[in-house]
């Protein structure tokens, strides 16, 4: 063997060993950058009249999910990276439909998460049935969504009937007999009004419900009428900013906190709520689906500290939910061994998947439970001004650690 040949063999050996060391040092799970990315869409409200603050938090959750898939899972389908495409539905059905169509028909996403407003999700759901790309309801609670039995709709959310019953049970256990409902004029608000009234009447309670326009600024007449009716509890089924105005104006006319107010979801946990209502929000009760500190899977444990580090606040349920949903889609892509949306939809039903707080298993019973996985409901209270989500007092249910006492 000549000197040059030996040198050449040695040189190649060094290169191979070097490459081997580099490969060994690199995280084995990193997605291959050169591969064609698999796209997942986020369709959420990022501008008014939608609840843009929630949309922003869902986006933060989605970005971490993409990071998790690409860096920790090594992408999908053996190394293809996943890319997030974001569209704004502005909380309106028309923008929602346009956004979904754009995501599917122009961008070629294989699944869409982040649906938040019921009225938008109901409208987009119809288009999803036609375009056959999985659509996840991440915050929309109208039972009409899953009742549609659309093979491409998936919901990881506490739906209106469950939540309404939970509130009525809670109010009954707190000794309440008269429930006032102030609800916005959307599928979200009117749906809750119907279901709360139904369960309250079954429980022998009196109900007064008033629907208000979503863009309302002066709720004084409505609140004066409620005050004159002398309720024990007032359920605020609005979405910010109307929900904040209702809280503030109820305080101004002396209705709240004399009458307990329940917020229909966790908007009182946001800093923004305190910026909007100041100390007038103290004492508000709110429905949530988790409280920081509750048990999470390794996915949730991975996400939570990174979210706090990036955004200086604890993740909301919706940010965790969108995070989990995207990872569920990624798992389904791997199980389907395909980026075909129809095969992914089938895979979503065929196998259970790990989410941020447990296992999700989409079943197909007729009616509202179709492809629906419900989160647990809890009632928290903001007992101090500017109280953080982490420090909110857990009131109900007792079995999840609540003390059953409203301050």
């Amino acid at each position, binding site marked *: 063997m000549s000197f040059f040949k030996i040198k050449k063999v040695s040189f190649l050996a060094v290169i191979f060993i070097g490459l081997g060391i580099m490969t060994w040092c690199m995280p084995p799970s990193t997605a291959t950058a050169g591969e064609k990315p698999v796209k997942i869409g986020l369709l959420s409200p*990022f*501008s*008014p*009249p939608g609840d*843009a*603050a929630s*949309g*922003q938090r869902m986006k933060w959750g989605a970005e971490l999910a993409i990071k998790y898939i690409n860096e920790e899972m090594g992408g999908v389908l053996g190394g293809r990276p996943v890319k997030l495409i974001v569209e704004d539905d502005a909380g309106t059905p028309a923008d929602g439909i346009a956004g979904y169509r754009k995501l599917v028909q122009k961008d070629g996403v294989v699944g869409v998460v982040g649906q938040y407003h019921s009225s938008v999700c109901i409208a987009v759901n119809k288009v999803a049935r036609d375009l056959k790309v999985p659509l996840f309801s991440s915050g929309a609670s109208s039972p009409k969504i899953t009742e549609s039995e659309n093979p491409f709709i998936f919901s990881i959310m506490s739906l209106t009937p469950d939540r309404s019953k939970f509130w009525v049970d809670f109010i009954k256990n707190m000794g309440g007999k008269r429930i006032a409902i102030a609800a916005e*004029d959307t599928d979200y608000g009117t749906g809750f009004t119907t279901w709360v009234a139904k369960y309250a009447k079954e429980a022998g309670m009196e109900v007064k419900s*008033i*629907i*208000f*326009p979503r*863009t*309302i*600024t*002066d*709720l*004084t*007449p*409505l609140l*004066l*009428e409620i005050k*004159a009716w002398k309720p024990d509890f007032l359920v605020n089924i609005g979405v*910010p*900013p109307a929900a*904040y*105005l209702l809280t*503030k*104006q109820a*305080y*101004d*006319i*002396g209705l709240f906190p004399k009458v307990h107010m329940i917020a229909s979801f966790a908007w009182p946990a946001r800093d*923004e709520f305190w*910026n*909007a*209502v*100041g100390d007038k929000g103290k004492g508000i009760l709110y429905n949530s689906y988790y409280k920081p500190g509750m048990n999470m899977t390794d996915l949730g444990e991975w996400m939570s500290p990174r979210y706090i580090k990036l955004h200086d606040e604890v993740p909301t349920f919706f940010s965790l939910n969108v995070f989990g949903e995207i990872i569920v889609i990624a798992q389904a892509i791997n199980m389907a061994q395909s980026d075909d949306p129809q095969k992914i939809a089938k895979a979503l039903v065929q196998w259970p998947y790990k989410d941020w707080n447990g296992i999700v298993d989409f079943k197909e019973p007729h009616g509202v439970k179709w492809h629906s996985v419900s989160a647990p409901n809890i009632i928290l209270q903001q007992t101090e001004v500017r109280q953080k989500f982490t420090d909110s007092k857990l009131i109900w249910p007792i079995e999840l650690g609540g003390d059953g006492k409203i301050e």
Partner: protein
Amino acid sequence: MDLHLFSQFLISGLIMGVLYCLMSMGINFIYGIMKVINWSMGEFFMIGAFIQYLLLESFIGSEYWYIGVIISACAVFVLGALVQVILIKPMFVGIIEAKMEYVTIITIALAIFLRNLALLIGGPYIYTPPDYAKPTQLLTLPLSGNRLVAFIGALVLLGLFYFFIKKSWTGKAFQGVAQNRAGVQTSGVNVLRYDMLAFGLGTALAGAGGALMAPIFSVHPLCGLAPTIRGFEIIVIAGLGSIPGILVAGLLLGFAESLGSAFISPSFVDIYGFILLVIVLSIKPYGMFGKAERTV
């Protein structure tokens, strides 16, 4: 319904009526002088509210809210005057005649631009400045101090504006421009300069309204939308260009919403104004105080 609750609805309607008047006065004044409708008025309201919030939170403190209202109004005046010079004035041809459709498009485009700019700068969040006053009681109605302050502030601003228009030389010149844009030039009045001032003043009224009502309606990119809709309802009910009509129509709208809520349902609060509008227009097609324009 008992008398106590009825009186509360009446007082609430009176307060809201006066606040609506302030909003519509600016739109009406600009139309009266320039014969153009500023569709971006709500955005000037929103800018006034944002400036007030920034001032109170970062610079002057909540105890000087009234200084904040003045600064907000002045800042919006300057912005409005600039907008007039840069965007509206070029639409005027032959000095006195505006291309109405251009002004409509420009002001709608401006509204969209300003709304998105607010979203870009302030984010999708809702802000509220600190309270101007403690909760109080006005006759039978318990209400926030902010609402009482805004009510009194709006009355003062409307009074000052009325005095300015009726008693000052500049105000009389404005009346002249409103009556006959071509004729008033023969008296040495620079119509385009008065257009700029009118646009600035009109938007400043909206800005002051935004600053006064910031703690009541909160501050966010769409906070000017509802007052603007009410403002347009009022000017149609009153008749375009009529200042006394604005006061009457504003109060009527406030009472219609409040009493409609009391006797029918608060759920339809947005509709009562339109019902009033339809009734008025079916009886008086040019509005309560409007006059048929002579066409040649």
